[in-house]
């Protein structure tokens, strides 16, 4: 699912214009809407009561829940009034400083008339998709050989706040990827594991950008005939990803910031 947040007085107008242009299942999430559960012509309208507050930093838990819940069966999510880490965000007629917005600010038009919708849709398409473990499991079970599968093994890597009780907390990690080459290597690992007897589908996804303490980083999902080959493939999948895929991690704790490879 490709998400986009829009903030500012004209946010709803821009979201409507985008929703009319996007092809695919689109969820519209409106922070200000109060008619909970209201359905519209588009696939899903998730509504939340406005609480009048909007925090400039960190994670909005409700928004994250909606992203996670809607990701497996939507192609797009358009949100007004919300922004969070790793979600591309448009500030429309909104003079907030882009650096005060938690999402990645991709455009700052004054009004809807100033927006190049084609360019903005291109930006939405090119952004990192919002992928959850559930997204990958649903994709795996859609495999034509799923009727021969009696096992799904999954691995989720997440941000560990501490190794020991006395440690400074790790507040977040920032991941950077060698675009293109990282995807090629992950695809090669998956294809190699799928060549094993009884392994039908291997899917992996590694998030990039800033990921906070407790959030998920990486998923590996294996659809297999039996548990033995599922467990083996999921372990080898994450091990090979960590050894060979060009992704780089910078860690920030309460006390310091460092590239992880430099500490090893």
């Amino acid at each position: 699912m490709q998400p986009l947040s829009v903030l500012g007085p004209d946010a709803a107008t821009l979201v409507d214009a985008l929703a009319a242009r996007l092809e695919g299942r689109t969820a519209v999430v409106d922070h200000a809407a109060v008619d909970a559960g209201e359905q519209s012509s588009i696939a899903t309208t998730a509504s939340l009561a406005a609480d009048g507050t909007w925090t400039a930093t960190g994670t909005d838990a409700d928004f994250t829940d909606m992203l996670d819940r809607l990701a497996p069966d939507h192609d797009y999510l358009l949100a007004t009034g919300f922004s969070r880490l790793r979600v591309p965000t448009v500030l429309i007629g909104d003079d907030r400083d882009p650096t005060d917005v938690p999402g990645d600010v991709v455009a700052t038009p004054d009004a809807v008339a100033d927006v190049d919708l084609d360019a903005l849709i291109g930006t939405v398409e090119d952004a990192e998709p919002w992928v959850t473990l559930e997204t990958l499991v649903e994709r795996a079970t859609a495999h034509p050989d799923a009727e021969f599968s009696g096992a799904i093994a999954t691995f989720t890597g997440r941000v560990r706040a501490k190794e020991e009780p006395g440690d400074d907390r790790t507040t977040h990690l920032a991941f950077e990827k060698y675009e293109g080459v990282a995807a090629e290597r992950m695809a090669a690992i998956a294809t190699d594991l799928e060549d094993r007897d009884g392994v039908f589908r291997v899917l992996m996804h590694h998030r990039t950008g800033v990921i906070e303490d407790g959030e998920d980083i990486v998923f590996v999902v294996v659809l297999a005939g039996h548990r033995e080959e599922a467990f083996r493939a999921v372990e080898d999948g994450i091990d090979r990803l960590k050894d060979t895929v060009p992704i780089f991690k910078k860690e920030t704790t309460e006390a310091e910031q460092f590239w992880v490879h430099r500490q090893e």
Partner: protein
Amino acid sequence: MEWKLFADLSEIAGGRTVTVDAEPGDTVGDALDALLAEHPDLRDRIMEGDELADHINVLVNGSNVAHEGGLATELDDGDELALFPPVSGG
């Protein structure tokens, strides 16, 4: 030719890409020398004496040159060069 740099290497060089004076027909080693001439501060980070440090990866078009012709590999027009420390995903 253009180098793509990752992690602390791009921080040291002050950018994710560096264009260097190397042509098709030159070697990867020539392009590396040109990079070090442009950014001498990278030398301490990536070299051990006159040799590229073992833990530093050099890729041409996504393939590690250590598994192929090494720094003697000849460059072709349009090659993509990348330099990075040990990977640390997950």
